[in-house]
Each structure stands twice: as C-alpha cells, then as structure tokens.
C-alpha cells in the first residue's frame, strides 16, 4: 500500500515534470542566452535582437534553420524509439555518419537505376545504422552487455573508420575537400524555400514522425516494445519475446539515424564530407530528452535546438559575439537534460 501511494504520487510528479520540465529547460536556456549576451557583448541589445529574431527575419535564415532541424528530428526519433523500449542508444554519431556514407556510395553506384536506385541507397544507409544499433542489442541479448556502453564504443570506432574511408579510398580527387564524390543530380531533393537550403527532406522527416508515432501506438509490435520498456518482467510474463525487444528497437533506432544521415546527404550536402555530421547524434539525444521520447514532440524540440544554433550564427555574423555562444547554450541544455538521463538510467537499473 505504501508503495502504491508513493507510485501514485510519483506518477503525478512525472506527469508534471514531463510537461513543465521541457518548457523550463527551454526557458532557462533562453535566459542563458540573455545573460551570455550581457556578459560577452558590447552591444547586448543588438546581439539579442539578431539572436532571437535573426533566424526568422527572412526566408533564407528561416529555411536554413528548419533544414538544420531535419537530422535532429531523425536522431530524436531514433533515441525516442530506443528509450521507449528501455534501451539506450548512444551510438547516434557513428550511425548517422556511416549511414550517410553508405547512402552516398550506393547512390553513386546505383545512379543508372534512377529513382529506384535513390530509394535503395537510402534504405542501405538506414540498414547500415540499423546494423550498428542492432549489434549492441544483440550483444545485450547474448551476453548481457550494456547497450549504452557498446553502442557508444562501436560508434566511436565507426566514426574513425568512416573518416578513413572518406579521406582514403572514396575521396573525390577532383576537389580540395575531404569528401566523397557527389551523388547524382537526379537524386537530390528539391529545394522548397529558395534561396535557403531547406528541401523536401522536411516532408520525409514529418512522415517519419507520423510513422514512428503510428508504429508505437497503433501496432502490436509497438505495443510489445512499449510494454517491454515499461516493465520487462511484466512483458515476459505476458508472453512477449523480450529478447527480441532488446534487438529490434536498437535496430530501428540505428536505422532512423542512418536514414537521417542519408537524407542529409540527399537534401543538403550531396557528398559525404568529413565530420559533416559531427554533433548531430548527440544533439538528437538532447532533442529526444527534451521531447520526453514523444515522437510528436520531437519536431518542436528539434526546431528549438536548430533555432539556438541559427540564432548564434546570426548573432555572430551581425554582432560581436562568437559562434561558441551556441555551444555554451547547447551545453546548458545538455546539462539540464542530463538530470533526466541519469534518472532514466537509474530507473532502468532498478528494473533489472
């Protein structure tokens, strides 16, 4: 009985936290921007105006900001899916990067196939990310290793491997960039808000959100995944193959990252450049945490993150602060959401 009451209170607190928490994080981050500007800028008023209004002042900045949110949406979805199943995927960096490379190389190789080739190449990129994520899930199932650690370690190794491949065997000798060759023109996604970089990838991202939401809440597999995440003993008791739900969600999570990488290539970069995705994996994690692993909430959370980055870039261009202000604010956000990470890790440990 004691336990029940405590749980009741706890669930209420969780509910309050889940709605107030993210807003509070956003508010604190924005206050942080103000304080930083006051401290660092000789013309804080101007800095703040460019920071807050810059990203929405014209279609160019606005479109670029939205474009920056797209990979974060995919990453945020990937993390949310894993977290919902009680798995922790820290391998986003490697999954997004290798997914992008595989998608790029396949796209170049499959150019003659036209649209089918474009789709196959994207799927191949997603499969790459899915493979990496699934590997960690498989290790956990087989040897009870922590997927949190293995996904992180595998990812670190893969980033270095991809760096080598881009700088070595697959480097395009015709440019001075450390990058692969460009994907065929026909594969590139249409720009939808000229002159900005925003492409129809935005619609793919929104579609992904809808699909993940549908999967989690409407399908049997999504139900099994969520129940496994909420209480794996209960899931097992109910006849759910809980082992499978150590592997599948990690695979899907990695696949979403990999797909995000491929789509970033198709929509924005056209070739896989060295370190083009650096930080996207981690920012995807922060986005998922702000969104409290709710697929629909991933969109505003990703836009918020992209907004901070775009604001900082804008303030840097038009005022006297450096781009690091974005990093500081993002670190602040990370710092604030870390409490949530630690909490969920603690809960998971108790569940075992």
């Amino acid at each position, binding site marked *: 009985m004691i336990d*029940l009451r405590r749980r009741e209170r706890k*669930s209420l607190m969780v509910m309050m936290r889940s709605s107030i928490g993210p807003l509070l994080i956003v508010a604190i981050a924005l206050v942080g921007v103000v304080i930083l500007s006051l401290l660092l800028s000789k013309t804080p008023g101007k800095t703040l105006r460019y920071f807050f209004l810059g990203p929405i002042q014209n279609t160019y900045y606005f479109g670029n900001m939205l474009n920056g949110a797209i990979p974060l949406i995919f990453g945020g979805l990937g993390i949310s899916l894993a977290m919902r199943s009680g798995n922790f995927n820290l391998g986003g960096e490697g999954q997004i990067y290798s997914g992008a490379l595989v998608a790029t190389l396949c796209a170049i190789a499959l150019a003659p196939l036209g649209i089918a080739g474009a789709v196959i190449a994207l799927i191949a990129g997603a499969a790459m990310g899915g493979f990496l994520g699934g590997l960690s899930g498989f290790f956990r199932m087989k040897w009870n290793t922590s997927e949190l650690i293995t996904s992180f370690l595998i990812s670190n190794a893969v980033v270095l491997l991809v760096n080598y491949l881009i700088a070595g065997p697959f480097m395009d000798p015709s440019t001075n960039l450390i990058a692969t060759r460009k994907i065929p023109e026909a594969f590139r996604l249409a720009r939808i808000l000229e002159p900005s970089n925003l492409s129809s990838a935005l619609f793919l991202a929104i579609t992904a959100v809808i699909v993940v939401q549908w999967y989690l809440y409407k399908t*049997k*597999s999504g*139900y099994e995944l969520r*129940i496994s995440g909420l*209480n794996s003993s*209960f899931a097992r008791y*109910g006849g*759910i193959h809980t082992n499978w739900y150590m592997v599948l969600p990690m695979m899907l999570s990695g696949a979403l990252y990999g797909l995000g990488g491929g789509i970033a290539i198709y929509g924005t970069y056209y070739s896989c450049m060295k370190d083009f995705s650096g930080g996207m994996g981690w920012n995807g994690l922060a986005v998922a945490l702000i969104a409290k692993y709710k697929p629909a909430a991933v969109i505003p959370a990703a836009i918020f993150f992209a907004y901070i980055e775009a604001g900082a870039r804008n303030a840097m261009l038009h005022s006297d602060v450096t781009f690091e202000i974005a990093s500081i604010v993002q670190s602040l956000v990370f710092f604030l959401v870390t409490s949530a990470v630690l909490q969920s890790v603690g809960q998971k440990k108790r569940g075992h």
Partner: protein
Amino acid sequence: MEYAVEMHGITRIYPENNLRANDAVDLTLRKGEILCLAGENGAGKTTLMKILYGLERPDEGDIRVMGKPVVIGSPLDANRLGIGMVHQHFMLVDDFTVAQNVVMGVEPTLYGGLYNINEAEKKVAKVVSDHHFSVDVKKKVKSLTVGQKQQAEIMKMLYRDVDILILDEPTAVLTEQETEALFVTLRELARLGKSLILITHKLNEIKAISHRVAIMRQGKLIGTYNTAEVDELEISRLMMGQSVTLHVDRVDTGLDAKPVIRFENVSVLRRGQQRPLLDKVTFSANSGEILGFAGVGGNGLGVLEAVLGGFVPVTSGKIYHNEVETTNCGTANLRNDGLAYVPADRIEVGSAVAASVAENLIVDARSSFTRHGVMNRKKIEAHAQKLLEKYSVKGTPGMSIGTLSGGNIQKVILAREIEQYKDYIVLSEPTWGLDIASSQYVYERMAELRGAGAAVILISSNLDEILAVADRIIIFYRGAIVAMLAGNEALGASKEELGAYMLGLKRQEAIHD
C-alpha cells in the same frame, strides 16, 4: 536477572493499511543468552527488530538497553549503544577485501587522514583469531563462500564492539555444515557475554541453539519460553495459532477428473548450491479442483510458481499439459498453450504500472486485438470497459493501472487471467494484502472456475486460505513434497497438522496422489 534489552509495550502501526505490525510487544533479552524470535511470515518479527536497530520508530512503548532508557533513532544510535544487526541480505562490497569491508565506515587512519590498510588488516585478523573464524582477511569478498560472507558480516559487528547482535534468518542461505559452524560461533559469542537475537522459523534450529524462544503471531508476542521446556510441536502450535474454521462450499471433484497439469520428478538446481530448490516434485492438478500448495517461505513455493510461469527452467523431470510435454518451453509458448497465471508480485510481474488499465488487460491476448499487425484501439477500450464492469473494478480504461488501489489492481489482473484461461489457472498469493471483501471476491471467482471444470492451482502461504478453499493440499518442505492431503484428510486437516508438515516435523510415509 540482568537484561541487555528490555522492550516494553512496543506498538507499531502502519497507517497506510492500519496494520498493527507490532501490538504492545514486551520482549526481554538477557545478558549472554541466545534468544530465538520465531513466528510465521508477517508475524511482526522483523518490524520489532527494525525498531530495536533504529530502522523504524515505534508509535508507542519504550526501550531499555543495559538498564538505561534509550531512544534509538537510527542504526548509528544503535551501534553507539552496542547493538548490531546482520541482515538476511549481505551488505558487502564484492571487490573489497574482507578487512576493507569490515572496517568500512570506521577505518583506522594514519596521520589523521590516510587509510591505514595494514592496521585494518591487523585489527581484523585479531577479530578472526579471537573468534576462530576461517576467513583470510586479505581475500576479496567475491571469492568467499556464502558462509564466509556471513562470517564477514558478523565480524563487521564484532569489530564495532557490539554487545547485542541481531541476526535476521541467518541460516536461510547456509548449507547444513555452514549452519553448524555458525552455531559454534554464536555459542562462543554468548559464552563471551554477548547477547544474541536470532530471527527464525526453523524449529530444529530453535531447539539446537537458543536458551529461550519468543513467539510472535499477528503482531503480538504470544510468549517467551525456556527452550528446554517446550517441544517442537508446542512451538509450532504457538506459531500457527488455533485453527480457524472458515469453510467455503466444496464440490465433489468427481471421478472423471483428468490431470491437466502434471509434474513428473521435477527438480530445479542452482549452480553452487547443493540443496535443490525443487526436489523431485511429482503431482497432477486435475480438472474441476482447487489444488492448494502450502509451505513456509524459502521452501520451494516461489520456485514452483516460477516454473509454472515458465520463468525458471527445470534441471530434470518433465511437465505435461493435457499429457503433451511442455517442459522448459518458455513463458511465451506456455501462454500460447493456455497459461493463465496470477503472480504473487502484482507490481513487478503482474502489471506495468505506468501503462493504462486497457493496455494491462490485453498483454496476454494482444493477438486477438490485432489485424495485420495493427491493433484495434476501439475494441481494446470496449474490452477494458466490459471487464471493468464485469469485475466491478473502480477505474477507467485510460487510467494508468498504478493509480488504482491494491485490491483493484488485483481485480484487473484476475479479470485478465480469468478471461484468458483455457483449462487451468495458477494463482499465487492471490489475496495477499487484500481486505476481507476483496479476498472473498477472489475465492468466489476461484470456486466459479472450478465449477467450470478448470484445474485451479493455488499457491499460498496463508494456511487459513488453503484450508478454506483447497480440495487437495500439497505441502512443501525444503523443495520437496512432504505431504499430500486429499478428500477427508484435506477437509479435516488442522493448522497444527499442516504446520507440523510445513516445518519439517512430520512427513507422510507414502505420498499418494
């Protein structure tokens, strides 16, 4: 007579369920004696000891230690007063050595701050030689046997110079030889003038080790006796209490009853443990009967439940469902095969507290709400609404189940499992923590299931419940079946009789089925 501890009029009420865990308990501990505190599960032994060790505060009553009135607010207070407790679950750091574990919190220091490991090892080695322990103080705890770990726990207390030592079921995890060695140590400690309290419900141990035995039942102290003056049967009778005649309508199980679930020589062994958790268990649960399993905690009922639920694989033996073998086929397959099961642990196993009532209600029937992989939310909601009404649960389909009361959670679980059942159902501690009305409700549903021809397997540590509803009774002691009572035997059985079997005093010569 000098007393080390005098507890007077101790009352502890848990306000959440208005349970009197301790009701005006008077307990005395003489200097240099070994006192056994005996009683069934839930009798209030542990609560009383937690009060003495400062983990709980009494609502009423006072405590004297060595003649002086004291207030014990925390285990630190208790330590200062010379009271130590060895918990049932060891509190040791596996990667530290014995010496490091023993001195933890009161480490000897060098130059007023540096950890003096040599001094620690020397001091702990002295404790070891003084008390004839058999542990190498430089060994890491993870390499010790269970018995040695317990020695380390006791050393922790001796190192802190406690005079009064409480041990919570110290032999629960020990082998017989280890138990013997422990008893030698405890007698030696008593001879040196330490006063000891052992929480236990093992009768042979009470007889073997204690000077006096204090018996608790339902929060009250029944009495404290000189161990030499009471025999095991008398202790058992005092622990169990008088039979409560509480009979539920019984039906003739009929002659055409067929075995639904059949165990054939099923054993479960655990690595590193000699005594099997289940020891060659053979029985059959027949259609149209309630088969009750009784036993004291730690004697195999929990393992039996886990085996029936498919959580624990059996080491040897075979299990049949309708004469088709289902040994070790896993919970998912058992579910497909028609397993309906109300687990003892409702919160950790029987429900996902954060999920909605509707989602909790379909976990084992999710496929019937699915077409082409997509679930029909409307159908699920309607199903939940129907069951909530049918089983009169106070709640709505959309609420998370964790916000319901304990009784209502149990009703949701019952509803789900009864709707799911094909020909048998396993219920473990189905009325644990429920009030009388809810318990009665559960019994009525069980009787209905039996009437419908189901094999109802009831696992319960509540003897009144077993006696009231079971058509046949199987009693476990140390993982093995020691008695099987059927027909008039089961009807006429008394608590004393069951108690004698449960505590290993008696054993049926030929166990019949």
